[in-house]
């Protein structure tokens, strides 16, 4: 069977061709042999018959005359004939007369006749008759059998030789014939191999013949073409897509880079602008003083001399000078705020008195448009500490605005004291029944140099700086300035400021009860007032301070100003939803580093995490999870200890204790030299040095730390008891170095400085690493 199942179609075809040819040949050969054999036999019989007739003719006379010698002579003549192996004459009665046999055995014809045996094809019996046609005897002849065998052998040999030759010829022919079929097939096969191995759909099979294989090839090619087209299409699509992605990525990268560059430039330009404005307004004021002063003097002199004609013009010069001075002062204030140079000066203020004074000052303006002012200032506890110059300026601005934009109306000033979350506050609201503002006007209201309408300045005067400045002042005082207004109905401005805020020596505001040593600030943004209360109850036990924002924009504002350790953010809020708030917080560099925990009924983690949420809590709140989550994200883990250098052992110990209470690790050494030795072998997260009793040592120490490879950017806080000279201060007040002056340093201020100097990234738990030097 294995022969019928060969590997290739080529061999199958050969075997088929050779097999068929051989079978046909065998049949033909058998037929030929049979025919040859039968004609051979016929010839043999004929030849025997002739021989018998000849012998009968020769033996007739001896038989008739009974001459046995003569008969023997006749029969012996057969010896010369090699083919006759036996001969015998019989008398008519059947008796043997004479005989001849090469083997010497009698043929015993009568016996065989009696036994009924048939004669073989090699024997013949013929009757002998005389001239009168009388039978005189019988002759028997037998030929040699071997002759026939030789004939048959020759026949078989010829047939075999012929067949062998035919098979060879058929085989050779089959080689040529099978090619007709197999060559196109093998070509097709090779083509399919190329396609499957190389995935090359561009090759084509050649249609060698027009038969079924040719059709198969054509069909195969058509199929390939389809695949190739599809492949090409797909590839082009893919390339196009990759190209598109690459292009977009590049565009995005470029945009990011240019944005970053633009931001750096803008920041630098803004700072330069603020400094320029501060310098410029100072320079402008000096000549302005002369203009105002001399115009005033001239007025006085013209009064004394009784020259009244000049007075209105002098008044105009004087008025314009005053107005210009006001502008310059506003610009200076604004630029100071923007440059971060505006500070607070707190003093004990009797708020009702201050309000009364402002009301008196503004009275002429109120009266000008026939307005009425009602002041409601009740139950304000005495002895509020605030910056009265700024507060006065804010109130004056709000009231004079109200007076300006109201005619024959009512202006109300309401003052309230509120002691809620985030510390006690003073709330001043100024409402009027004036022309009001449209939502579009409200949007631009607090932007510097923008007034509600471009012709407002012309109609009502003013610089457009007042509200911007007032808002900045309120923010500086730990509060805000907000507005509600309706066109033609009136406006209501609400200024909120912190009462009794804590201020550093440099006048920077500390928010009370917020930046406590043991109370990290958590900002809860939720429109449901119950939520912050619940959270506060749980978190304050953990030592956190919770403040609340009831809507998204307030939350963003508080996050910017208070820089809380963590923000919890409700998703479902009216007007500005949690996702938008999260987006805003994360896109603002000021708030981007603050971890935000989303609080929601709707669990949508992927969206939250993609927008930069730090964690996720679902409502109703599981307080155990809440505390765990808040602790994890809000509690700073400082990777490296704070190095305290202080020659005084007692104050050094105090400092370390304070730092540890506030959650920092701290190590202490006595001298600058020891400090430098420490940072040689360890890493300090921050250096707190009290070396200013020996001023040069302190300066040298800072320089040495700055050149250290690992501590080039380590924050340093220098504490000094004496004032530094300007140049020294300039040398020290570079990046990451702070100088605290004064004989005693307020611990709160110190901790606040440390918090400000340690970058937020190091506060992340993921950056923390076990410090082998802990507790040194």
């Amino acid at each position: 069977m294995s022969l019928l199942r060969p590997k290739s179609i080529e061999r199958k075809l050969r075997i088929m061709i050779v097999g068929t040819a051989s079978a046909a040949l065998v049949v033909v050969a058998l037929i030929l042999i049979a025919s040859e054999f039968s004609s051979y036999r016929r010839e043999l019989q004929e030849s025997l018959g002739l021989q018998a007739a000849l012998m009968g003719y020769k033996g007739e006379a001896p038989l008739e005359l009974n001459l046995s010698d003569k008969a023997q002579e006749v029969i012996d003549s057969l010896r010369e004939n090699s083919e006759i192996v036996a001969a015998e004459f019989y008398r008519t009665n059947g008796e043997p007369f004479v005989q001849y046999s090469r083997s010497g055995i009698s043929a015993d014809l009568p016996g065989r006749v009696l036994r009924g045996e048939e004669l073989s094809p090699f024997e013949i019996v013929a009757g002998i008759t005389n001239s009168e046609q009388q039978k005189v005897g019988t002759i028997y002849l037998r030929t040699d059998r071997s002759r026939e065998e030789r004939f048959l052998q020759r026949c078989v040999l010829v047939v075999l030789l012929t067949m062998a030759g035919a098979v060879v010829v058929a085989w050779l022919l089959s080689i040529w014939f099978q090619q007709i079929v197999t060559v196109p097939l093998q070509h097709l096969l090779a083509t399919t191999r190329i396609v499957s191995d190389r995935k090359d759909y561009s090759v084509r099979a050649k249609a060698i013949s027009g038969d079924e294989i040719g059709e198969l090839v054509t069909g195969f090619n058509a199929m390939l073409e389809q695949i190739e087209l599809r492949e090409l299409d797909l590839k082009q699509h893919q390339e196009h897509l990759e190209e598109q992605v690459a292009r977009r990525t590049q565009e995005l990268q470029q945009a990011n880079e240019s944005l970053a560059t633009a931001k750096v430039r803008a920041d630098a330009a803004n700072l330069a602008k603020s400094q320029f404005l501060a310098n410029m307004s100072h320079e402008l004021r000096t000549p302005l003083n002369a203009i105002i002063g001399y115009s005033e003097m001239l007025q006085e002199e013209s009064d004394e001399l009784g020259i009244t004609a000049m007075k209105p013009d002098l008044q105009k010069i004087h008025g314009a000078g005053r107005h210009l001075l006001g502008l310059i002062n506003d610009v200076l204030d604004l630029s100071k705020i923007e440059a971060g140079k505006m500070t607070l000066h707190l003093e004990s203020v009797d708020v009702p008195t201050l309000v009364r004074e402002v009301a008196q000052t503004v009275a002429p303006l109120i009266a000008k448009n026939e307005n009425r002012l009602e002041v409601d200032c009740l139950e304000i506890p005495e002895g509020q500490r605030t910056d009265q110059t700024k507060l006065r300026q804010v109130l004056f601005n709000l009231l004079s605005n109200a007076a300006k934009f109201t005619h024959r109306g009512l202006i109300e000033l309401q003052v309230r004291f509120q002691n809620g979350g985030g510390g006690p506050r003073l709330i001043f609201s100024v409402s009027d029944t004036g022309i009001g503002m449209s939502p579009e006007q409200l949007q631009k209201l607090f932007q510097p140099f923008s007034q509600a309408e471009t012709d407002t300045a012309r109609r009502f005067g003013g610089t457009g700086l007042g509200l911007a400045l007032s808002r900045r002042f309120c923010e500086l005082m730990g509060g805000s300035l907000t507005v509600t207004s309706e066109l033609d109905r009136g406006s209501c401005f609400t200024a909120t400021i912190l009462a009794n805020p804590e201020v550093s020596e440099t006048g920077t505001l500390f928010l009370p009860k917020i930046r406590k040593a043991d109370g990290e600030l958590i900002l809860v943004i939720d429109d449901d007032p119950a939520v912050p209360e619940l959270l506060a109850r749980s978190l304050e036990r953990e030592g956190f301070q919770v403040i609340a924002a009831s809507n998204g924009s307030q939350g963003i504002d508080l996050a910017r100003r208070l820089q809380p350790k963590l923000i919890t953010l409700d998703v479902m809020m009216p007007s500005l939803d949690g996702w938008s708030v999260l987006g805003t917080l994360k896109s603002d560099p000021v708030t981007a580093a603050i971890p935000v925990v989303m609080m929601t009924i709707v669990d949508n983690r992927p969206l939250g995490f993609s927008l930069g949420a730090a964690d996720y809590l679902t409502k109703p709140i599981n307080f155990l999870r809440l505390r765990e989550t808040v602790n994890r994200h809000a509690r700073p883990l400082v990777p490296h200890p704070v190095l305290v250098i202080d020659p005084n052992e007692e104050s050094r110990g105090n400092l370390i204790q304070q730092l540890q209470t506030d959650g920092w690790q701290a190590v202490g050494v006595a001298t600058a030299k020891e400090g430098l030795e420490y940072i040689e072998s360890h890493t300090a997260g921050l250096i707190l040095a009290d070396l200013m009793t020996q001023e040069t040592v302190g300066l040298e120490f800072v320089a040495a730390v700055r050149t250290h490879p690992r501590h080039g950017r380590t924050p340093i806080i220098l504490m000094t008891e004496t004032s530094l000279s300007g140049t020294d201060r300039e040398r020290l007040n570079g990046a990451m170095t702070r100088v605290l002056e004064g004989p005693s340093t307020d611990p709160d201020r110190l901790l606040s400085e440390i918090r400000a100097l340690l970058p937020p990234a190091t506060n992340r738990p993921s950056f923390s690493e076990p410090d082998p030097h802990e507790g040194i």
Partner: protein
Amino acid sequence: MPKILLVEDNELNRDMLSRRLERRGFTVVMAVDGGQGVQMALTEKPDLILMDMGLPVLDGWEATRQVRADPATAHVPIIALTAHAMSSDEQKAKEAGCDDFDTKPVELPRLLEKINALLSRSRTV
């Protein structure tokens, strides 16, 4: 007539204020920097000093300290004049030993009020 020492480096301001004060009957002597101011406080024995704070050589705060430090001049009332109404400047001026504080540009009636108040106080002392 009360004698006022005006310490002011800006010529226009000096001219303006001195003329206005003189017209109101004061005798005005002038110094152009802090050092000269301290010197003249000693030599001129003024009844009151108007001290600009942004002065060359010796700034107003330092000059005030020195005037206060000298027993011969320690009693002379000093009004600080600063360029801008910064409360911190007022605080600083008072810490340096000034009795009062006013801002430039000077509003004469207000300044006169302060001058007269201080003069009458020192007279009663």
